[in-house]
C-alpha cells in the first residue's frame, strides 16, 4: 500500500501536497523576487493567507535556488518573530501540451508557498501619510526584530536582506522577519566564502561593501542599525545610489575606517579602491544628538564599522534602551491600521493607476511629497521636536485610517520595487512607498540634517546597481498574521531577556503611558 498522499496515477508527482485550489485568490498584493504574492482565502476554513507563487519560467535553471533556500530555511525556523511557512501547494497547471505529451512547462509557476497573511510591512506602515511611531512602539518593533534575528542567528541562519519591507507587521502589532530568499546557513567552524553581493544597498554593511566574503551575523546587525536610525530619524540614513556613494555616506557619518577602529580593514579586498581620500571623523553622536541617550548608545554599537566589535542581537536586546522608560509597549496595544485588502483588485488597480498619475503630475509641480515623521517623543523630556510638518505630540495616537498603507496592497510597477524607482521616479502614489528620491546628496556636511522632506529626486535612473547587489524587490515576501497559530510562550530562543525580570512584554507597566486610548 502506498502511504497517504502517494496514491497517484503514474506520471503524476507523488508528493502529497495540497492543491492551490484549496484557496481562493483574492488579489495580488505584491511582486517578489521570484514570483507574485496573492492574498487568498482558504476555502475550508476561511482563513486569510498569503500565497507566494514561485516563478519557474526559466526552464534551464529548474527550481529556483532561492526558493529551495527559503523553503528549507523556513522549515527549520519556528519563532513568533519569523514568518511561518504554513505549507507548500501545487497547481496542476497545463497538463499536457498539444501532442498530449507531458508538458515541459507543466510545473511552470505551479508551486506556491503559503504564509500567514500580514497586513503591513514596516516601510509601508512608516510611509503612511501622517504616520508617526511612538517611542514605545519603536522599542516594541525593534525588540521583536532583534528577538527574531537572534533566533535566526542562534540557528545559524543569516538573513542577509534585513530592511523595512521585509519586516512584516500584522494588526496585532506582531513583527515577523520575512523573505529568506537570500538567507543562508552559516557555520562557525567552516569559515566559508560567501558572496558579498547581498543585502539591499542602503542597509549593506561596510565590510560587504569592502568586498569581504567571510562574514557572519554582524552583517544583519548593521542593517538593523540602519532601520533603527531610520525609525528614529524619519527617513533612511544611507540612501546611496551606488556602492562608492554608499560607502561614502557611511564614512561621512561613522568616520573613516582605519587600523585603529577596525583592525584588518586594510586587508579587505577593495579597501584601496574605496579608502577615503580625506580624513573623516565619526559624527554619529553629533548628527543624532537629539536622539534619546539610550537610543543613541545602542545605535552607536550597531553602526560600528568593525563587524567584530558590532553589537550582537542578543546583547542589543539587553541594552538599556529596552529597559528604561518608556518601555517597549505590548504589541497588542498598538493601534490597528487599516489595511486595504477589502478592496477589489480591479478597483484598487484602477485607483492606484490614477493615484500614480496624479502623483506624477503633482511631482512635476511640487517635488515635495509627504514625508516620514520622527517618532512622537513621550513625556517631552527629550523633546527637541524636529522640523517638518509636525504633528501635535499628544500622548494619544488614534488609529490612523487615512487611506490604505498596505505596502503590498498594490502590484508593484514591474520595473522594480517602488522604493527604488528605475528612473524618472514613476509611481509616486501618495501612499506608495516611493522614497527613492529622499535625501539624495544631502550628506551630513552641514552638521544638522536638512529639514524633513524629500530631497531632489535622483535625476537619472539612479537605481542602485549590480547583479544581486541592487535593492531587491522587497514586495514579495513572506507573510503571516497574528500570533494565534504560533507556539507562543516558548520559542526556544526567545529568552534573550534572561535575567532582566519578567516584564518582557511591557505588561501593565505600559498602561501608565497611556499613549493609546
Amino acid at each position: 500500500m502506498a502511504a497517504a498522499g502517494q496514491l497517484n496515477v503514474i506520471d503524476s508527482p507523488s508528493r502529497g501536497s495540497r492543491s492551490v485550489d484549496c484557496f481562493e485568490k483574492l488579489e495580488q498584493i505584491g511582486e517578489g523576487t521570484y514570483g507574485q504574492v496573492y492574498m487568498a482565502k482558504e476555502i475550508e476554513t476561511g482563513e486569510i493567507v498569503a500565497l507566494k507563487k514561485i516563478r519557474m519560467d526559466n526552464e534551464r535553471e529548474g527550481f529556483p535556488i532561492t526558493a529551495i533556500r527559503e523553503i528549507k530555511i523556513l522549515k527549520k525556523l519556528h519563532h513568533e518573530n519569523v514568518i511561518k511557512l504554513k505549507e507548500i501547494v501545487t497547481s496542476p497547471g497545463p497538463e499536457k501540451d498539444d501532442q498530449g505529451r507531458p508538458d515541459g512547462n507543466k510545473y511552470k509557476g505551479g508551486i506556491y508557498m503559503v504564509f500567514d497573511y500580514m497586513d503591513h510591512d514596516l516601510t509601508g506602515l512608516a510611509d503612511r501619510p501622517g504616520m508617526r511611531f511612538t517611542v514605545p512602539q519603536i522599542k516594541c518593533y525593534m525588540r521583536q526584530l532583534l528577538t527574531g534575528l537572534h533566533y535566526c542567528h542562534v540557528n545559524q541562519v543569516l538573513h542577509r536582506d534585513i530592511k523595512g519591507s521585509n519586516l512584516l507587521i500584522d494588526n496585532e502589532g506582531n513583527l515577523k522577519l520575512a523573505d529568506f530568499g537570500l538567507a543562508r546557513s552559516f557555520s562557525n567552524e567552516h569559515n566559508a566564502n560567501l558572496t558579498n553581493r547581498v543585502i539591499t544597498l542602503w542597509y549593506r554593511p561596510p565590510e560587504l561593501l569592502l568586498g569581504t566574503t567571510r562574514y557572519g551575523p554582524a552583517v544583519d546587525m548593521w542593517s538593523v542599525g540602519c532601520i533603527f536610525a531610520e525609525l528614529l530619524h524619519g527617513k533612511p540614513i544611507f540612501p546611496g545610489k551606488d556602492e562608492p556613494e554608499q560607502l561614502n555616506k557611511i564614512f561621512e557619518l561613522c568616520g573613516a575606517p582605519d587600523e585603529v577602529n577596525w583592525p584588518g580593514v586594510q586587508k579587505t579586498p577593495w579597501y584601496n579602491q574605496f579608502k577615503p581620500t580625506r580624513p573623516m571623523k565619526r559624527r554619529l553622536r553629533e548628527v543624532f544628538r537629539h536622539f534619546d541617550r539610550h537610543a543613541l548608545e545602542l545605535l552607536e554599537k550597531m553602526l560600528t564599522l568593525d563587524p567584530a566589535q558590532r553589537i550582537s542581537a542578543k546583547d542589543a536586546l539587553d541594552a538599556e534602551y529596552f529597559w528604561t522608560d518608556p518601555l517597549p509597549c505590548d504589541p497588542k496595544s498598538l493601534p490597528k491600521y487599516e489595511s486595504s485588502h477589502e478592496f477589489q483588485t480591479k478597483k484598487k488597480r484602477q485607483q492606484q493607476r490614477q493615484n500614480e498619475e496624479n502623483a506624477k503630475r503633482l511631482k512635476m509641480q511640487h517635488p515635495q511629497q509627504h514625508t516620514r515623521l520622527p517618532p512622537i517623543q513621550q513625556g517631552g523630556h527629550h523633546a527637541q521636536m524636529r522640523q517638518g510638518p509636525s504633528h501635535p505630540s499628544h500622548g494619544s495616537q488614534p488609529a490612523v485610517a487615512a487611506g490604505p498603507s498596505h505596502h503590498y496592497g498594490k502590484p508593484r510597477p514591474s520595473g522594480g520595487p517602488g522604493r527604488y524607482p528605475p528612473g524618472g521616479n514613476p509611481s509616486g502614489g501618495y501612499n506608495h512607498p516611493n522614497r527613492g528620491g529622499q535625501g539624495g546628496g544631502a550628506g551630513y556636511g552641514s552638521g544638522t540634517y536638512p529639514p524633513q522632506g524629500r530631497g531632489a529626486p535622483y535625476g537619472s535612473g539612479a537605481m542602485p546597481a549590480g547583479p544581486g547587489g541592487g535593492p531587491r524587490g522587497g514586495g514579495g515576501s513572506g507573510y503571516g498574521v497574528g500570533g494565534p497559530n504560533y507556539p507562543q510562550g516558548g520559542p526556544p530562543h526567545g529568552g534573550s531577556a534572561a535575567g532582566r525580570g519578567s516584564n518582557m512584554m511591557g505588561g501593565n507597566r505600559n498602561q501608565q503611558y497611556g499613549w493609546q486610548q
Partner: protein
Amino acid sequence: MLTASEYSNHSRQNQPVTGPAELNLPRVLWILSSTLEKLVSRNEKLVDELNQELDKLNNGSVRLGKSLNLFHGVRAPGISIPKYLERIYKYTNCSPSCFVVGYVYIDMLTHKHPDSLVLSLNVHRLLVTSVMVASKMLDDEHYNNAVYARVGGVSNAELNKLELELLFLLDFKVMVCPRVFESYCLHLEKEMLVNGTGLKIERILSPKSFETEISVEDQQSSSPPPIVDYGLT
C-alpha cells in the same frame, strides 16, 4: 581512511584528491558506485524473488518502488553506475561532497518512503537529480539544470520534473548538517570494509584529464557528448 574533510573539498582544483598521485577521481565516486551497485543488485534480487512468489500465486508481477515511479525508466540504461557517476563528475565539475550528499538524499528517500526501492531502472535518474540538487545546495557556482540534463541523458523538462519530485519527496529537507554528512561518510567507508573491497579503491582509474572540463563561460559549445547511446532517454 577517508575523512569528512576530504569529501567536503568544495573546490577540487586546488585541493587534489588525496591518495596515490595517479588518482584523479575522488574516491567517493567509487565507494558510492560500489555501494549503490550492491544495493541495486540486492533490490533486484528481492524483486525477482517476490515476483516468483507471486507467480506461484498466479498473481502477475508487481511493480515495486511506487514512490519513485517518476524516476523509473522503461529499461535500464546501458551505462554502468560507476561510469555514470564519473560522467557527472567530469562534466558538471561539481564538488565531490555533492556525491555524498546526493547519496544522503537517496538514502533519506528510501527511509521516508518505505515503498521506494532503488533499482537499475531508476538509479541513474535518482543519481543525476540528487547530485544536481546537492550541487545547487553546496556549490556557489554550479551548472544549471540544462547542463545536468545533457550530462545525465535526460531532457531538461524531465529533469526539472524529477528535481521537483525529489524536493517534494524529501519535503525540502535538503540541508545536510556536518554531523549527518560525517556519519554518512563513515557509513560509506564501512560499506567498503564490509565488502572487502577497501583495497580496490587504490587500484583503479586512469588519470582524469581536466582539459575535458566544460567551461562556465561557454556552456553551449562545449557541452558533453550526448548520452543517447546509453539508452537512458
